[in-house]
């Protein structure tokens, strides 16, 4: 695909994944609202998956390694489940602290 690359595709996306992890962790740890922290968590997650998937494509001739792909699909769904729980907790906290619902 394209001429002989000056830098292997996998290395470009692997390093990009590493940078995304760094950016995401910065966004996660800096003092911010929970919603932004959940967003940063998703960025770190997708950065890790990009890096993991890139390391599976180091030998383009044999095609991408299916094992990381399968693990990443599992990871993406798990990350969505965690995001949904975080958002639900966040909204519940806003509801409860707004005093609208002082249940037992």
């Amino acid at each position, binding site marked *: 695909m394209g001429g002989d690359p000056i830098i292997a595709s996998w*290395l470009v996306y692997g390093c990009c994944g590493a940078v995304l992890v760094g*950016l995401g962790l910065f966004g996660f740890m800096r003092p911010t609202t929970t919603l932004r922290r959940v967003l940063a968590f998703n*960025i770190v997650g997708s950065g890790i998956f990009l890096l993991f998937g890139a390391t599976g494509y180091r030998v383009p001739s044999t095609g991408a390694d299916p094992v990381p792909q399968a693990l990443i*699909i599992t990871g993406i769904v798990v990350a969505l489940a965690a995001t*949904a729980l975080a958002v*639900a907790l966040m909204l519940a906290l806003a509801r409860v602290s707004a005093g609208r619902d002082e249940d037992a």
Partner: protein
Amino acid sequence: MIASGFDITVCVLLCLCALAAVTGRDTFRAIVFFIVYGLLISVAWLRIDAIDVALAEAAIGAGLTGVLLLGAFGQMGSADTMAREPRGAVLIALVAGAGIGAAVLFAVQGLPPEGAGLTAEVLAQLEASGVGNPVTAVLLNFRGYDTLLESIVLLVALIGVWSVASETGWGERPGIVHHARAGGTLQSFGRFLPAIGLVIGAYIVWAGSSGPGGAFQGGTVLAAVAILTILAGLVDAPRVTTRWLRWALVMGPGVFLGVALLGLFGGAFLVFPQAVAYPAIVAIEIVLTASIALTLVLLVLGPPREAPQ
């Protein structure tokens, strides 16, 4: 040469989107950048020959997570602003992020360039796995145990989301009441799209055995389409306590676990004898898709709403 140019451009845009999403104080802008980021990630996955993951990322990254975050932003509104950012804490976060990022960068470039991972082993056993698509073979046969646990993780997250409902809310319908103008753009779009979405979702699940696709990607597309109809106010989600809903949620993981336990009679767990592997895996995929689609819809809708006073 051009290929590297393309890859580098994608990566630069990805990093810019990520940077814009984590900095600045405007939450809405951060979410829009995240949606565009999800799109670019799907393009990146295509460049590293991972079409199955690109499908999943397109449906979840650019689709469901975006809807989840926008929905949360819609309901949080002004309560979501941060007073001020203590300088010290920002510095610590910067150092931590940069440090871990640099360490990972160092590790990535130190990896053996010819590492082919388990590609050979998977392709060698592909015939015995019963399906044509190597990723589906790994997901449902070689490492089916991970997928089984993961479908339980989805259920646990849903029970967790439901359990933060208000005391009066138990038994109500999940999420907020959506409404749209009768015959308006939103409603007609909501009425038109599900038909096509259903066909495409089913196609993706069916294609999963031989080509890219499968239970998760198909399930996510079906979930996204169902959410659209709910957002368009055409349909309201069933009550949290309805019996058929709970059986449907449990059906996918239940069948998968049941089939796995059948193997115990033959002295192994979660085993698909080659003769019966294909039909068994396809059957599990169909049931799993239904449960996953339903669970994802309910996860995005959120906890049951408060009972009307």
